């Protein structure tokens, strides 16, 4: 009888332990969280579009390929990634309220800092597409023509050309 009671108690304890282990049962599983951060785009006005001296009544053109006077923007970003670009172009250069018309814009874009091996573009406000090079660079070259009126007052005329690039 004594032995049977001991066995009963022992078994009961085992049962309680078993029940407790069931209560503590737990499992887990995992997933990953992932993100890819792209390089930010930078646009630098690398070289001004410079017409130098112009004379009343004489139009002057600077070609985009003019290494000294052509305008140039240097762009960096995520290598090999497509971008959209557009220009904000002035219709006049100004000086003390006087206008010097500017137009006939020409351009060229290339993954390398060169006006060969890329493709010609016509700078405009209409968004267009391009791709950053494998090195994450893109170069825009800009040219234009100014048309001074016969009675254009002398002075220093300026305007701003803006290039916007986005992913």
């Amino acid at each position, binding site marked *: 009888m004594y032995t049977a009671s001991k066995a009963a108690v022992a078994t009961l304890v085992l*049962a309680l332990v078993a029940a407790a282990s069931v209560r503590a049962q737990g499992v887990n599983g995992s*997933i990953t*969280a992932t993100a890819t951060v792209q390089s930010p785009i930078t646009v630098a006005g690398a070289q001004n579009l410079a017409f130098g001296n112009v004379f009343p009544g004489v139009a002057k053109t600077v070609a985009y390929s003019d290494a000294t006077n052509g305008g140039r923007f240097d762009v960096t970003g995520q290598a090999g990634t497509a971008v959209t670009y557009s220009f904000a172009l002035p219709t006049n250069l100004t000086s003390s309220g006087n206008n010097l018309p500017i137009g006939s814009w020409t351009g060229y874009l290339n993954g390398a800092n060169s006006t060969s091996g890329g493709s010609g573009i016509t700078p405009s406000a209409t968004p267009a597409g391009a791709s950053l090079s494998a090195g994450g660079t893109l170069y825009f070259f800009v040219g234009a023509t100014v048309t001074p009126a016969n009675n254009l007052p002398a002075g220093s005329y300026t305007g701003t050309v803006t290039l916007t690039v986005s992913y």
Partner: protein
Amino acid sequence: MRGLRYAFVLTATAFMPLAGQRPLTVTGIQSLTFATLLPGMPSVVSRTDAVKSGRFDLGGPHDAQGEVTFTLPSVLTGPAGATLPLSFGGSDAGYSQSQNIGSQVGFDPKQPFLITFSGQGRGSVFLGATARPAPTQRAGSYTGTITLNLTAFP
């Protein structure tokens, strides 16, 4: 002898809940994916986003209750040890007994949450979060591990 017999009966009763019930399981089904981020621009993934939200499928005794807790990273780790801050809002986790992303009960993934398994012993947890890349965030791929811990109450 009679005492011994009672003991066996009690033992059998104690173990009965285990018999014929689904085992507890947690399966990571879908990663929490932010895709492409730009430096300085926070990105939010909703727990109801079928493509980007994280998902765990749970299994256990039908109609039983369990407690869900998470082990959440505060950052994702990227190139050369760079870190990308990650945060979880008070309703960024959701539980669906029917395993339907469209019918979730939101809860705070930073707090324990009591769930009830379906009649088939199933359920799913969906998870969203916010990533906040710094303006100077280094470009590259970032990853982290999210663990769901499930404890059952038989």
